[in-house]
């Protein structure tokens, strides 16, 4: 009865039946055995063992089944030695006892020694031969064949096993074996199904956890992250320290975007097994975008571990180490790392081949960055030019690094090597183009970009760069179109903008903003009605805001927004904005934004904070330009001029001339500064003889500078109006004459002073005062008699000039008007100020300022010849302009405001030029990161 119940699986009822029997007969062997079986199934192995033992005592010659039971109990209790004895005894009694055989085999297998496993398998096979339908034996055999890779056998065995057993855990094992087999064959669908089946047979995960892991793996493979996550988490519950599971979970969290959680898990994995290089690599790759320092540490640990283990360090790891060092500005380490990643190859020979020069013809040298002959000759010399695809990215990064440390020659060789082998590597073309651009070889640069566009006509980076180049060539219309195309190209990509595309996207947003900004600037030139301007400002602001909204950390957009705000007169807001951008930009090697500094300086300047503006200009000049930018020196000079620091103004201008010798405008400005200095000295009520003497010297210099310019204008070396310069010459000469009189007077005064000092002091002073008054009067009379004539003459000349001027301006049109306007309104202010001063030298002041202003407006003339004709049709607009300007002139406050506006306006084209450079850097940044992403993926895939 009890046996029947037991066989039916009704354990409790069986147990009560056995208990009744046992109460009646303590030594009833079948009941004892039955109860033992019950206890065993309940998991009470020690009770079960006691029962078996009693049965054995009662009936020492009982069949092997009892000993088997004892063995199983002892096995479960962990008494492996005694268990083995029991099994062996059972086997002795009945050599055909399959269970005992299987049990022994399992124990052998679990001993985990080669000999044990072999012995175990032999036993297993024997058991199989004796009784081919023992599920456990089948499972173990299948397991064995799985490891030996005989999948067909695995399937057959497990299918048999499934057919012969109803026992849950055994079935679960069988399904698991089957699933594993399919899994390893890559049939994830089937594997998944069998894992599921296996999992279903399991009541509690901790009994048999492997199918969960397998299922998780398959689901991960199939992209079902959520389910995979649940399964792996179950595994983790049981084995909280399992590295593989931790890593798998980490990956899933990365995929699900929960970076912090992923980091936590991977860190744990790395901590648990500090010798698991892969864990560190995973961790590093995870951290690379968030915490480069920690990522670097992780990669380095991985590298050390792999090196210690004598394994080869993956190229990607070394590349990533290199990239991080690079980003942190540690170029030495980066260099070493890239070199390690590259190992031995043609590049080493190429970089060291400095002793073997290949002479290229100077006429062809223009194309030096396109020249591939080097490699052909190299091949002809019997060398193999080989470049494995997996090293291209590293080579590219190395070249970028060489570029960064100014070894452009070597960098260009490497880029060309890449292109020699892989003609479609667009980024190499772009870098070569960037190098050519940096060396001002625009023609070659454009050619290279076009090569890149041949490969991929919609490559946004290439388009942006082409736009920049066209801007540099003053080809505005083309540039506008190119930027349009660039922004179109990215808009198309918007829909599937992924992490790896983010950088490209960012760059193109800049291009977009910039393109439109330029577009806006170009538009405005056509009609400069203030209303329209305001509209465009609004539009620009809107655009920038949009860009900022799309990518909150876009510094360029923020900078642009700052410019717009400044233009609208909201200096405090724009100042804040610029300051923030400046702070944000100071963190990276790649982001260099000198324009922000300049913009900030402009704002200070516009607010009248000259000292700070000067400091800002100087810092910018030193920090970003190695003090080589004449334009910023000009800004600085202008600030000195406004602050009435004439000598500093002059020195700045002289430095600028030294840097940009062919810029005659600077000479003109220097002349004006000297003239202004002299005039202001002469205006002073008290001056020493020394001061007057230096004034005379300065005026002589000014005269010389102006006459030089006048002579040079005959040769058409610059675009100044000769008459205008002559006016200056005349004026300076005139001033000089006056100054000479002043000097004589002052000298006489000095002498008389000295004489009088010898006499009684009081009397002398009184006398001196009287004389001085007399002198002054005399001079004033003289002055009065001489001035009107010259004044009249100058006036008429001015009128002439004014005509020529506006006519010219009408022709000029174009963007330079902006500059013109800026300087115009700027000096209009001055005019107004002079007006207020009501000093008699006012006409000259006006003259000076106007002259000063005009050439600055003309500065772009030389470059813009081409445009001039095209803009003829804008003549009408030009007329309108002068009207506007005239309206502006009377009101000082208006002029002041205009000036402030135009300051920032003025810097705009300039700033664009700056932005070009930074853009390029940004470009390369993007490239680098992008590559870095590629290598993260393990395989460098195509950009598309």
């Amino acid at each position, binding site marked *: 009865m009890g046996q029947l119940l037991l066989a039916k699986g009704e354990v409790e009822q069986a147990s009560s039946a056995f208990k009744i029997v046992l109460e009646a007969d303590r030594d009833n062997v079948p009941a004892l055995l039955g109860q033992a079986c019950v206890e065993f199934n309940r998991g009470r192995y020690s009770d079960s063992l006691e029962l078996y033992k009693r049965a054995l005592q009662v009936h020492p010659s009982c069949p092997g089944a009892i000993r088997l039971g004892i063995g199983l109990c002892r096995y479960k209790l962990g008494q492996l030695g005694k268990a083995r004895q029991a099994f062996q005894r059972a086997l002795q009694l009945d050599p055909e006892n399959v269970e005992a055989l299987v049990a022994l085999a399992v124990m052998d297998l679990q001993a985990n020694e080669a000999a044990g496993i072999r012995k175990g398998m032999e036993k297993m096979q024997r058991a199989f031969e004796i009784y081919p339908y023992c599920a456990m034996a089948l499972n173990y055999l299948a397991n064995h064949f799985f490891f030996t890779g005989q999948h067909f056998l695995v399937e057959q065995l497990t299918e048999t096993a499934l057919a012969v057993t109803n026992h849950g855990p055994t079935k679960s094992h069988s399904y698991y074996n089957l699933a594993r087999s399919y899994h390893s064959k890559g049939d994830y669908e089937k594997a998944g199904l069998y894992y599921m089946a296996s999992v279903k047979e399991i009541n509690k995960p901790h009994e048999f956890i492997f199918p969960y892991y397998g299922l998780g793996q398959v689901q991960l493979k199939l992209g079902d992250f959520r389910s995979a996550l649940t399964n792996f988490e179950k595994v983790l519950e049981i084995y909280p320290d399992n590295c593989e599971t931790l890593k798998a979970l980490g990956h899933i969290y990365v995929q699900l975007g929960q970076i912090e959680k992923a980091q936590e898990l991977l860190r744990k994995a790395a901590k648990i097994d500090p010798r698991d290089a892969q864990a560190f690599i995973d961790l590093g790759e995870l951290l690379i975008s968030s915490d480069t320092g920690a990522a670097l540490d992780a990669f380095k640990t991985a590298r050390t571990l792999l090196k210690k283990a004598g394994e080869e360090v993956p190229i990607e790891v070394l590349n990533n180490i290199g990239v991080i060092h690079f980003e942190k500005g540690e170029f030495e380490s980066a260099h070493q790392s890239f070199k390690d990643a590259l190992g031995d190859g043609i590049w080493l020979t190429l970089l060291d081949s*400095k*002793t073997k*020069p290949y*002479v*290229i*013809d*100077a*006429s062809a*040298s*223009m194309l*030096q960055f396109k020249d591939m002959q080097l490699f052909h000759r190299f091949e002809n010399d019997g060398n193999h030019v080989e470049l494995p695809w997996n090293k291209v990215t590293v080579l590219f990064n190395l070249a970028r690094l060489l570029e960064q440390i*100014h*070894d*452009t*020659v*070597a960098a260009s060789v490497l880029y060309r090597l890449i292109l020699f082998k892989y003609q479609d590597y667009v980024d190499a073309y772009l870098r070569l183009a960037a190098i050519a651009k*940096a*060396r*001002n*070889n*625009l023609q070659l640069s454009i050619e290279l970009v076009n090569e890149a566009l041949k490969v991929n006509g919609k490559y946004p980076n290439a388009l942006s760069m082409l736009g920049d180049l066209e801007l540099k060539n003053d080809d505005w219309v083309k540039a506008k179109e190119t930027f349009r195309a660039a922004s179109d190209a990215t808009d198309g990509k918007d829909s599937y903008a992924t992490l790896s595309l983010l950088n490209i996207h960012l760059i193109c947003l800049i291009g977009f903003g910039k393109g439109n900004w330029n577009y806006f600037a170009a538009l405005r030139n056509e009609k400069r009605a203030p209303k329209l301007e305001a509209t465009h400002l609004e539009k620009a602001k809107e655009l920038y805001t949009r860009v900022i909204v799309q990518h909150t950390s876009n510094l360029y957009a923020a900078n642009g927004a700052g410019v717009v705000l400044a233009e609208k007169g909201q200096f405090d807001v724009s100042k804040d904005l610029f300051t923030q951008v400046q702070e944000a930009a100071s963190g990276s090697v790649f982001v260099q934004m000198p324009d922000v500094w300049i913009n900030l300086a402009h704002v200070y300047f516009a607010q009248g904070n000259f000292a700070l503006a000067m400091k800002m200009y100087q810092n910018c000049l030193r920090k970003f*330009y*190695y*003090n*080589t930018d004449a334009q910023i020196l000009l800004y600085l000079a202008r600030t000195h001029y406004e602050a009435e620091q004439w000598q500093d103004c002059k*020195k700045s201008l*002289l*430095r600028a*001339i*030294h840097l940009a*010798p*062919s810029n*005659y405008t600077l000479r003109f400005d*220097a002349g004006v500064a000297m003239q202004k200095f002299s005039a202001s000295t002469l205006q002073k009520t008290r001056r020493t003889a020394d001061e007057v003497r230096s004034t005379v*010297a300065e005026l*002589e*210099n000014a005269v*010389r*500078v102006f*006459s*030089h*310019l006048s*002579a*040079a204008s*005959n*040769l*058409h*070396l*610059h*675009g100044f109006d000769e008459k205008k310069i002559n006016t200056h010459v005349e004026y300076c000469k005139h001033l000089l004459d006056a100054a000479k009189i002043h000097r004589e007077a002052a000298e006489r005064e000095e002498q008389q002073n000295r004489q009088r000092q010898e006499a009684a002091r009081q009397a002398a002073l009184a006398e001196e005062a009287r004389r001085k008054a007399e002198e002054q009067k005399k001079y004033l009379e003289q002055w009065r008699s001489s001035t009107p004539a010259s004044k009249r003459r100058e006036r008429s000349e001015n009128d002439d000039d004014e005509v020529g001027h506006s006519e010219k301006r009408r022709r000029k049109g174009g963007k330079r008007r902006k500059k013109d306007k800026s300087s115009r309104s700027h000096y209009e202010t001055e005019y107004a100020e002079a007006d207020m001063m009501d000093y008699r030298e006012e006409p000259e002041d006006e003259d000076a300022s106007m002259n000063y202003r005009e050439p600055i407006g003309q500065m772009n*003339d*030389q470059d813009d*010849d081409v445009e001039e004709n095209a803009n003829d049709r804008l003549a009408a607009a030009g007329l309108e302009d002068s009207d506007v300007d005239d309206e502006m002139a009377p009101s000082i406050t208006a002029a002041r405001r205009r000036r402030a506006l135009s300051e920032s306006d003025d810097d705009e084209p300039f700033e664009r030029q700056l932005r070009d450079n930074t853009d390029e850097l940004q470009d390369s940044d993007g490239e680098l990161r992008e590559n870095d992403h590629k290598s993260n993926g393990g395989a460098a895939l195509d950009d598309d």
Partner: protein
Amino acid sequence: MKFAGLKSVENAHEESVWAVTWVPATETRPALLLTGSLDETVKLWRPDDMQLERTNTGHCLGVVSVAAHPSGIIAASASLDSFVRVFDVDTNASIATLEAPPSEVWQMQFDPKGTTLAVAGGGSASVKLWDTATWNLIATLSIPRPEGLKPTDKSSSKKFVLSVAWSPDGRRIACGSMDGTISVFDVTRAKFLHHLEGHFMPVRSLVYSPVDPRVLFSASDDTHVHMYDAEGKSLVTAMSGHASWVLSVDASPDGAAITTGSSDRTVKLWDLNMRAAVQSMTNHTDQVWGVSFRPLGGRVVSVSDDKSISLYEYS
């Protein structure tokens, strides 16, 4: 091959020092150093202890260039006001004042025999040659206008001549312009020969190899130093390494090395066999406008916007 810093004079001038040259030794005294500065003065230094020998005034605006006659007796200095002042080195007596308006004055060099002074003429797109006996203008070597350009075309200003160099045999003059082209002239026939291309930014300094009249070195704002075969019109090699404009280049008397000064504040020593920079001196804190090897070898001097002069031992 290396440089070793010997001595630096801080605040050698009141303002940026823009020019430097060695004045060769005469029978009565050793070689001297001549420097020119934005502070409008030219100073003479004893190079052994870097003591100031004399301060010459008389220039207006900054002094952009100085040159010494091979005899060591006379020297010339030029400033932004386009005057060249020729003076006796030991007495500072003015010998001549040269001007050729509207031509500006940039780099100057005496020919190896000392009969002619070549002056880079800026916007006049020419090199002016002055006879050192009579101080008359004897020739103007003009860069020919490219075909098809009208004389009124303003683009001519792009051939603004900044630098000039004599070949060691005195038969050739090379001049560098703002647009990066280098023009080579035959001096005896006063004839333009050809352009050397490769730079596209201003070439501020040129020097021939003292041992090979074909080899010409150029320093450009494009951060590169080029080595040309000036006769064969070929670019032998381009050397990169400076982070900013290369402002000055000079070749060592043995012809094995060159040195460069740059806006990146460094002075570099280049081994011509390796065609690479072997050393980078970082003692200056601002642009290095001038570098010069002592004609006898063994010493190098550099001057900078940081107002200092530095002397190095070259070995």
